[in-house]
């Protein structure tokens, strides 16, 4: 639990830093995305590793919950909680919702099956070794995705839940690995809360900035129009079910 959780925490931190590049000009995040894609087999290796990590994490969580339920077949009439945080008591429920979000998120931005029109967003790199290469305009794709209020709200809700999951999980790692004692307990607890709040705010800032127009993209405004004419009707219906 702790080892897979630690890997996932490190990944979500890296992923957040990558995503925050949306606040720079489109060149920056498109260069970054192209760099990742140019890794080729290595990228697939990392993706496979992460997928296995998520599967293991969920599998362990399922075993954990089953074993723990078995250990107390008869519950208490007067259920009492001394100090277990709400986050710690909802790990498995929040975890399942986060899992559903991860699947949607992969379909949305990584595989782009929900929005094939994203492929029409192209960008020609201006600088560096890949100058002149035409790539998928990741910046425009994110802006276009988050310009839809329902999608944005869903993302904000989901990162909120993930932050809540980590409000227990982050600090829990230290205890499980034997790195916590009374001298460090306070620092770990404060770091955990700071991390969860900062993680939520920084993630939520991305869709919020797009919706409020702070982050915009020219490509979306020109090409995006023709793309939306083509796909708007089914698009609207698919979102209402999410």
């Amino acid at each position, binding site marked *: 639990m702790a080892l897979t959780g630690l890997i996932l925490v490190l990944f979500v931190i890296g992923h957040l830093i990558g995503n925050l590049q949306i606040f720079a000009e489109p060149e920056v995040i498109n260069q970054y995305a192209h760099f990742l894609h140019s890794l080729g087999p290595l990228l697939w290796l990392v993706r496979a590793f992460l997928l296995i990590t998520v599967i293991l994490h969920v599998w362990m969580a399922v075993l954990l919950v089953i074993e723990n339920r078995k250990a*107390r*077949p008869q519950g208490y009439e007067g259920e009492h909680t001394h100090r277990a945080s709400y986050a710690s008591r909802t790990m498995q429920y929040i975890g399942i919702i986060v899992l559903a979000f991860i699947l949607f998120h992969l379909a949305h931005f990584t595989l782009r099956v929900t929005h094939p029109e994203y492929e029409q967003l192209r960008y020609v790199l201006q600088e560096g070794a890949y100058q002149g290469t035409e790539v998928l305009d990741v910046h425009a794709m994110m802006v276009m995705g988050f310009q839809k209020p329902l999608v944005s709200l869903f993302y904000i809700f989901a990162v909120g839940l993930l932050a809540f999951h980590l409000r227990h999980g982050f600090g829990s790692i*230290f*205890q499980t690995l034997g790195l*916590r004692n*009374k001298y460090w307990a306070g620092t770990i607890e404060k770091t955990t809360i700071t991390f969860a709040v900062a993680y939520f705010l920084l993630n939520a800032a991305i869709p919020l900035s797009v919706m409020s127009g702070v982050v915009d993209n020219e490509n979306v405004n020109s090409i995006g129009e023709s793309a939306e004419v083509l796909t708007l009707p089914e698009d609207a219906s698919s979102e209402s079910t999410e």
Partner: protein
Amino acid sequence: MNVTLKVWRQKNADEAGYFETLEARNLNPDMSFLEMLDVVNNELEADNKMPVAFDHDCREGICGTCSLTINGQPHGPGEGVASCQVYMRSFKDGDTITIEPFRAKPFPVIRDLVVDRTAFDKIIQSGGFVTVRTGSAPDANAIPIPKETADLAMDAAACIGCGACVAACKNASAMLFVAAKASQLNMLPQGKAEKDTRVLKMVATMDEAGFGNCTNQYECSAACPKLISEDFIGQMNRDYLFASLRQKFLRRKKNA
């Protein structure tokens, strides 16, 4: 004062239990909770009814025998007290009080509020000891131990083996008990010889008994009558990690 009791009655581990409502009348607020049960039982016996079975011995918080869950709280209200140290003045006149046994799969009910905690004995037998040479007693202070270490080992050794940590844990995990019993010896030079096998075997025995897994919520230490710290669980996790690594890579025999 008068209170209404909702008491768990169960004939044995195989029969289903149920709650029985009993009235406890004319109590002195300075009576202990167990004395209140004595009063109730006297009345039941006078009526030719089966008294409520509950565990107790020292009645001064040192033996770890008493084991009541009072209003969902193992050992009832108050910090750092055993069931026998709970007094009726902690309740209000007219209160309804729910009394249940410590609930966990490895603690089967023997009768009413009495549970079988043999699983704890098995854990101790598997590693909660040190080997000593027989013969005359060693000199006091022959082995120097830093005061801080001795104090910490004493903190762990304060565990009275009551099982409230298991009862309070959302997952019925026995980690606090096992951590206290393993750490108290693992920290001291006398316990060094069996350090690795101790932690590996005690944890294995704990798992076999069917206790749940720790999810780091620290309900255990909040309910513990001796306020054993969850720090010892962190320490045991660390000892366990290193012991497993040493066993894997140094190819030590499992039962050495």
